[in-house]
């Protein structure tokens, strides 16, 4: 005996070592393959959602901390350029009156005491101006804005209004002249530098009011300009939603995308964009006829091993039952909507439009039990079939979009919570699935602060 002869014999014997249990072997393999997909959200979905939430929360807190800084500085550092809390006429002599301005002590805001001087009264000068001043001096909502009464010692006021408190110890910062001009002499510490605000104090009341009126007018103009522009803004969004159809279990899905918003009129915005989303649908035993027919049609081709007659048998009779179906579509969505802002504040909108889809991947899985009466006495064998396709199909206006957006300012940008409903208008994908969905979009709008 030579080694070659033995090796040749072994080769020939084991070249096609078929123990006739290939069917059983395949069933064993199917327990491991294909691997069952994880029901957890894919990591990139989670990453996208987490990144958006972090961005939103970060910007929100960033905005909050900025405000805190302003309040803090206003509350701790007496400013020479802060507006006077009260202008107090110390005495009125002939045509000349002397006026005191309390420097703002934002950390105390002591109320002036009553005195016997009945000649002077507080006069609330131009509420809007005061508010504007208050805002622009960053006194905030602390006491300063509550008692920002300006006392002007002109004679008309002095004769008709009750007097206010005069504190003789308060420093003189302005003197009124007979022509009611206020000469502001802002008292500052040596190391403090004069600022724009302190210069303003040198203006007369009339001039001051004019200046403030102009400032208000400018502010209003800026606001109106801001409302007019930008005409185009961008949104990035992540969406979490449920797909559902008929009585089947709703499936959680997610998507991300980008939108462009074009302002058409004051209250109307046209929005379009692109996004990627995953849509899932599942049927348990109530598979629609069109889907099951599609499955049987694909099974009936000549290469189908499951329906192929078993070797040695003259015929093969099979029965298929307990069919369940899962569909997964990873799609590129192209939404087009019109947003209507009913309120002047533009803090919410109602939108409606259509969505079209093209498909990056489509995956359809059929699970069923097949009984072959030619073998195993018709014992039911669990079967699973999967069909996949890539970059295939486009469905125009396959769903409508109805949504409501709630705007939340985040710095100069806007965070939008947008609950939406997308009823199916037509079928999606190769299997003509009618998938509706409902969920919420979290959108982040860049440079789109339209709030007044």
């Amino acid at each position: 005996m030579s080694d070659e002869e033995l090796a040749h014999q072994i080769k020939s014997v084991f070249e096609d070592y078929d123990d006739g249990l290939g069917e059983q072997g395949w069933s064993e393999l199917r327990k491991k393959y294909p691997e069952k997909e994880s029901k957890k959200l894919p990591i990139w979905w989670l990453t996208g959602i987490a990144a958006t939430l972090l961005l939103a929360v970060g910007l929100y807190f960033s905005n909050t901390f900025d405000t805190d800084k302003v309040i803090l500085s206003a509350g701790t550092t007496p400013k020479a350029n802060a507006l006077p809390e009260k202008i107090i006429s110390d005495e009125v002599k002939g045509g000349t009156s002397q006026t005191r301005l309390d420097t703002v002590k934002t950390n105390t805001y002591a109320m002036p005491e009553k005195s016997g001087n009945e000649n002077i009264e507080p006069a609330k000068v131009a509420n809007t101006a005061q508010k504007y001043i208050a805002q622009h001096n960053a006194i905030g909502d602390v006491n300063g804005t509550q008692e920002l009464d300006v006392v002007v010692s002109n004679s008309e006021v002095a004769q008709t209004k009750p007097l206010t408190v005069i504190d003789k110890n308060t420093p003189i910062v302005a003197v009124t002249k007979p022509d009611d001009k206020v000469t502001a002499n802002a008292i500052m510490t040596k190391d403090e530098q004069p600022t724009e605000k302190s210069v303003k104090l040198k203006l007369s009341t009339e001039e001051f009011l004019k200046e403030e009126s102009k400032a208000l007018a400018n502010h209003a103009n800026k606001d109106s300009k801001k409302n007019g522009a930008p005409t185009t803004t961008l949104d990035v969004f992540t969406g979490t939603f449920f797909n559902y159809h008929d009585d089947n279990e709703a499936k959680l899905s997610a998507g991300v995308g980008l939108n462009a918003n074009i302002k058409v009129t004051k209250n109307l915005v046209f929005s379009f964009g692109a996004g990627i989303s995953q849509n899932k649908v599942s049927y348990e035993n109530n598979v629609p006829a069109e889907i099951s027919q599609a499955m049987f049609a694909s099974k009936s081709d000549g290469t189908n091993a499951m329906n192929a007659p078993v070797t040695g048998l003259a015929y093969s009779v099979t029965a298929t039952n307990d069919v369940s179906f899962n569909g997964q579509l990873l799609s590129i969505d192209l939404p087009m909507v019109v947003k209507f802002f009913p309120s002047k504040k533009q803090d919410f909108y109602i939108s409606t439009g259509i969505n079209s889809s093209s498909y990056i991947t489509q995956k359809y899985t059929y699970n069923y039990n097949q009984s072959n009466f030619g073998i195993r006495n018709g014992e039911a064998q669990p079967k699973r079939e999967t069909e996949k396709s890539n970059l295939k199909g486009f469905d125009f206006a396959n769903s409508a979009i109805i949504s409501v957006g709630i705007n939340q300012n985040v710095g100069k940008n806007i965070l939008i919570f947008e609950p939406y409903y997308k009823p199916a208008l037509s079928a999606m994908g190769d299997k003509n699935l009618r998938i509706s969905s409902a969920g919420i979009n979290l959108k982040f709008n860049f440079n789109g602060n339209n709030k007044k």
Partner: protein
Amino acid sequence: MPDNQSLVELIASCKKGDLRQQELLYKQFYGYALGICIRYLSNRDDALEAANDSFIKVFKSINSFNEENDFKPWFRKVLVNTSLDYKRKSMRFSEAIELTDTIPQSTHTSAIDKLSAQDILALMKNLNEMQRTVFNLYEIDGYAHKEIASMLNIPESSSRTYLTRAKQALQQLLITHSIYTK
């Protein structure tokens, strides 16, 4: 076995992830796969598991296979490597049947021709794991000692030694076998 053209078409379908075509490929190469795995592994269940794992590897990586090449040698490599992965845990390099000094004796070719798969498996079970593996790799699957040394992480000289001892053992076993089957 499918002819070359239909095999190319079958592989092309498997590349698309068509489960029905994968099942067809499985059933057509089931015997081939099991025949290789069972030579390396001691029982059918282990061989089937290794064969199935090999098929799964093939299904997952079939896109990297070029249809212009022959499928069987590529698949054989997958089967052998998977079988060796199963064996590695149980392999003991120190394991070696101490063979008594044997003088090669001639056995009739007719006796070899009559060896069935079960006979061969029964004979091989008498070899230790390393001898059996080296014999299979060198004599049946055509690997060189250098490749075997690398695959089994042993010196090349050890591979030669294991092969020699495997052959001696088989000679002895075949003589015994032929005596009993006469």
